[in-house]
């Protein structure tokens, strides 16, 4: 790493003393004293120390609900009643060849099998696929005119997560953690919860730190007694026994007089954080204290919603405890557990919506009731949308040309629907690139997309590359 770049970036990060103070409960006060008097070395600070926003903004945390495989916009949030007249016909020739992964736009048009209604005070349109979410529309800002560059899942996933269609760039969560640090003393700053049946097609690069230091990578989190990889000592090692070993490590490190500097202090405090995580993370994922009403709200009492509901409840518990970025995947692994409805759209979307509708509505209601929604930006989206034309007769191929994503909480102006696609729901009108999506999210968090950079192989790399437009209307 270019250390000067790195230090420049750590604007008002905590000092070494604070880092040590935070770590003080584990090792001897004497040692702490001896560390603090050593002021020779250039001060190094914890890379995860909380850092101020570039400008005041409401959102402190993000929960990104990612629908793996691409839901269809025209069957969910972007009604196109006019398609009924085109049913079975071809798209007008003036559209030319339509880029998609398997089809070329010449297949017959398939209108939506679901009906739409306006909901809430705002009168937002939602299809019958989302009976629960439709009760939350007044907390949501729909944006119907996103577009992306690739028709293929993985590159499009990389683009929505990291701004490029190529893998290897830091993910949004990594950038946000790099920019804002952690608010939690006891948990990772950036956690990831994939579908238990399998990972999204883009795989781990979707939550990697790319060329940023590994400290900014997403940490896999699951429910159960060992929510984080290697959190627990191996079987047979009691916490007391481990504490003893850890104390020996720390005491030996204190003896290394040559190494009493901040870099070594950071290493000592990382062991303390690891130990604190051991006691806090299981508590953070322990849902037994949640009320029956809360469990029902997330659908934990029903078979088809309990799995995703559990992860969303975990997400709330994470942001409650200061986790900065929660990345959740709905779908992954076998094709039947993805939103990728190349055939049998009805069966696919009814299943996927059935699994996710109630938990998502539950999350929004719960965050709101607890006063967390204001500072938590919830994002719902995917790598692209689906075509209005059919594939395999009753399915839809990929549509990167225009699709819907939505925001809730985190200081956005709720109860509005922005942007549109053409009369077929095919192409975005005055569309927003993924760069705009990212610029908008950074803006909600008080981060200036142009100030959040990292020098990599001679280039000031940014999440938004050469810059996106903040969609100001999202904020009213």
């Amino acid at each position, binding site marked *: 790493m270019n250390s000067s770049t790195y230090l420049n970036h750590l604007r008002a990060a905590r000092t070494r003393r604070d880092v040590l103070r935070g770590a003080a409960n584990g090792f001897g006060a004497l040692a702490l004293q001896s560390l603090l008097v050593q002021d020779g070395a250039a001060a190094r600070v914890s890379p995860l120390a909380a850092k101020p926003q570039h400008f005041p903004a409401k959102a402190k945390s993000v929960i990104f609900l990612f629908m793996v495989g691409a839901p269809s916009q025209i069957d969910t949030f972007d009604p196109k009643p006019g398609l009924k007249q085109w049913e079975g016909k071809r798209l007008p020739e003036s559209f030319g060849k339509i880029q998609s992964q398997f089809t070329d736009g010449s297949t017959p048009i398939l209108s939506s099998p679901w009906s739409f209604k306006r909901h809430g005070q705002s009168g937002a349109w939602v299809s019958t696929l989302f009976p629960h979410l439709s009760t939350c529309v007044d907390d949501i800002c729909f944006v119907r005119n996103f577009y992306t560059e690739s028709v293929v899942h993985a590159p499009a996933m990389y683009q929505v997560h990291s701004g490029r269609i190529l893998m290897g760039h830091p993910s949004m969560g990594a950038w946000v953690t790099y920019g804002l640090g952690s608010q939690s003393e006891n948990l990772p700053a950036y956690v990831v919860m994939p579908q238990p049946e399998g990972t999204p097609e883009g795989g781990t690069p979707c939550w990697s730190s790319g060329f940023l230091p590994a400290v900014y990578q997403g940490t896999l989190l699951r429910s159960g007694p060992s929510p984080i990889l290697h959190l627990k000592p191996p079987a047979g090692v009691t916490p007391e026994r481990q504490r003893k070993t850890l104390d020996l490590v720390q005491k030996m490190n204190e003896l290394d007089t040559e190494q009493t500097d901040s870099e070594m202090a950071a290493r000592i405090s990382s062991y303390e954080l690891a130990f604190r995580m051991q006691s806090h993370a299981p508590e953070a994922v322990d849902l037994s204290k949640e009320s029956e009403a809360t469990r029902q709200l997330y659908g934990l009492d029903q078979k088809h919603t309990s799995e995703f509901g559990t992860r969303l409840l975990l997400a709330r518990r994470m942001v409650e405890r200061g986790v900065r970025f929660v990345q959740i995947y709905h779908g992954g692994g076998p094709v039947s557990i993805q939103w990728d409805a190349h055939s049998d759209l009805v069966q696919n979307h009814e299943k996927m919506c059935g699994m996710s509708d109630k938990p998502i509505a539950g999350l929004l209601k719960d965050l709101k009731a607890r006063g967390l929604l204001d500072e938590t930006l919830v994002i719902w989206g995917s790598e692209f949308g689906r075509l209005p034309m059919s594939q395999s*007769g009753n399915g839809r191929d990929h549509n990167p040309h225009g699709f819907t994503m939505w925001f809730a909480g985190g200081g956005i102006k709720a109860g509005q629907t922005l942007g549109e696609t053409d009369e077929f729901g095919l192409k975005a009108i005055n569309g927003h690139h993924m760069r705009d999506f990212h610029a908008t999210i950074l803006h909600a968090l008080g981060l200036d997309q142009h100030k959040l950079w990292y020098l990599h192989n001679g280039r000031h790399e940014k999440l938004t590359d050469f810059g996106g437009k903040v969609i100001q209307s999202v904020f009213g």
Partner: protein
Amino acid sequence: MRRTSFTIAVLLLAAVACAYAVDRYKDDAKDDAWVAPRRNFWAFRKPVRPEVPQLNNPWVRNSIDAFLLSAMQSQKLTPSAPLEKEKLIRRVTLDLTGLPPTPGEVDLFLADKSPDAYEKLVDRLMKSPHYGERWGLRWLDIARYADTNGFELDSERPHAWRYRDYVVKAFNHEKPYNLFIQEQIAGDELFPGNNEALVATGFHRAGPIHLVGGNQDEEMNRQEVLTEMTTAVSNVFLGLTMQCARCHNHKFDPIPQSDYYKLQALLATTDLKDKVIASDADKQAHEAAVKAYKARLKPIEDQIKEIEKPYREKLRDEKYKALEAPFRAAYDLPKDKRDKEQQRMAKEAESQLKVSWDEVLAVLPPDVKAVRAGLRKQLHQLEYTQPEPVETAYAVSSLEKAADTHILKVGDHKMKIAIVEPGFPRVISGLGVPPPEGITGRRAALAKWLSSAEHPLTARVMVNRIWAFRMGSGLVKTGNDFGALGSRPSNPQLLDWLATEFMASNWSVKAIDRLIFTSSAYRQATLDNKAKSAIDSENKYYWRMNRRRLEGESIRDAMLAVNGHLNTKIGGRPIKVPIEPEIYDIIFTEGEPDNLWPVDQDPKQFNRRSLYLLNKRTVRLPMLQNFDQPDAMSSCPVRPVSTHALQALSLMNSDFAAEQAKRFAQRLTAECSADRDCQIRRAYKLALARLPRAAEMSMAQQFLKDAPLEDFGLALMNRNEFVYIP
């Protein structure tokens, strides 16, 4: 949805796609005028061998010290005290081999009171085969090497490891760096018939590549490949960020966009193609072995099919009944009676009728499922008997036809501006290597140009890498960027002296290594000093040695080495070690997720050096990743060093760490029986190459009163001193 079958891109589509006329590039004069005044930048002027300062100071052992001391003196700085002998052997052994010294090696060195004891030690270590492994780890970071393609399928490259072994061998056998470049850039063109040189061209394919099915824009895919290759050549050998000039003239360096595409044109005839290098007899034997192997699998595959058959048929039947009338009608028609529309509908009906593996599994009764699972297990067991692939070079060759290379507006292949001819970046001129004409020999010309002794960058970039590797920071801190945005050399005379010395020593990396290792500068302690820090907090003047953390790979190797289980076998196909279930779960597949990570059958292979573990781009081994292993997506000149709690968790709690701690305890018990003090002394000697101090001894005795020996071993391996080079 994805398709697992794909065809390798046909490379000539660019010519076809370019149906409209695009002019030839005509802006030479304009670009020349833009570049000319900036040729004066230090990095573009050929290094001139500077006079070595004559200091008459006993600290000066060789020219390196003379340059450094002279610079220190100008800042009123003085060098640090030399490192104690026992720490020095640990430092130099870790640096040269990536492994800690054995107690026997330490004792020998401490006992050797001859004045050249240290020099003899350096000589011995440089002859160790681990020397090339140590360099291999470094070079593979620079060469963005991994064993898989990356992206969603992330398939393994069954032959890529030969390039890894080539690199290890090249460093061990002191291959001249100019030849090392030539072989990697154009081994196929320059040394036809030489398999080693052919394998070296795997460099061009070491990076990621996106292979996926469906509608593909082949021209765009080809652009992505060429962009990746061009970037690598520029970063790795030139130390320039020419990729910045892909979309526009370079913002900071005199590299016009035309020059980026001229460089790309030098690579545009490159065909990414495996080449079988086995003998005919081997090929025939392999074919027979494969036939026998398939015959072994078939009975079990057939049984599985047979078991699934009724359920598959039933599922398909249900799907058939659910087909909408027009689709069913089209499907029911005999193939030759379908009109075009019916053909389409029949095809679509066919895809609606497909039954996936998870649908079948969902309807199998438990007892049938168990039988099937048993058969799958048998099948996977048999798959271990798959014959090794026939010996093949993961290499490149040259096409006989090539598409024109265009300057592309913002790098977009749909926006062609002008056709360019292959050529070298004009900011570096006067090397006397003519650019190639026509199709053939393009990479050969590039190789000759890059490896020219007249080249201002090549030698400087490499000696700077050697220096950064050994001294902990480069003379130019940005190893892949010698341009305006990169840092200026902290000691330009030393850099140029090293560059000229490198070429004068027949481009021998070992020669420069030897100079560094035998300098006084390298032998300094790392201890900080307040007064000196106030003058030079970044240690640009090398008034002390930089402290360096071991890479995750080396920490893992060291853990295996101290408990005596390290398997020191060199080279060969990459090894799959056991992985945690959480990591297994993140392997992407839409297929049945069994046997996605068949670990090696011989558990001794799990103890191989980290260099030989399968490096899969989307599935990283957590311990290595946590310690900042690069993602192999682009050339990594210097690894970042971050410190965080996940490192502590993997070093304290992983099964790997626990196993090594147990083995460590077993070794101590075997060598010392129940003699506590012996165990403690031995543990220190093995792990830290020194004996415990009195305080450490009593601390250990106290700890071991009621804690098992393995916990003591674990604590030692988690200690700062264990993971840092002294």
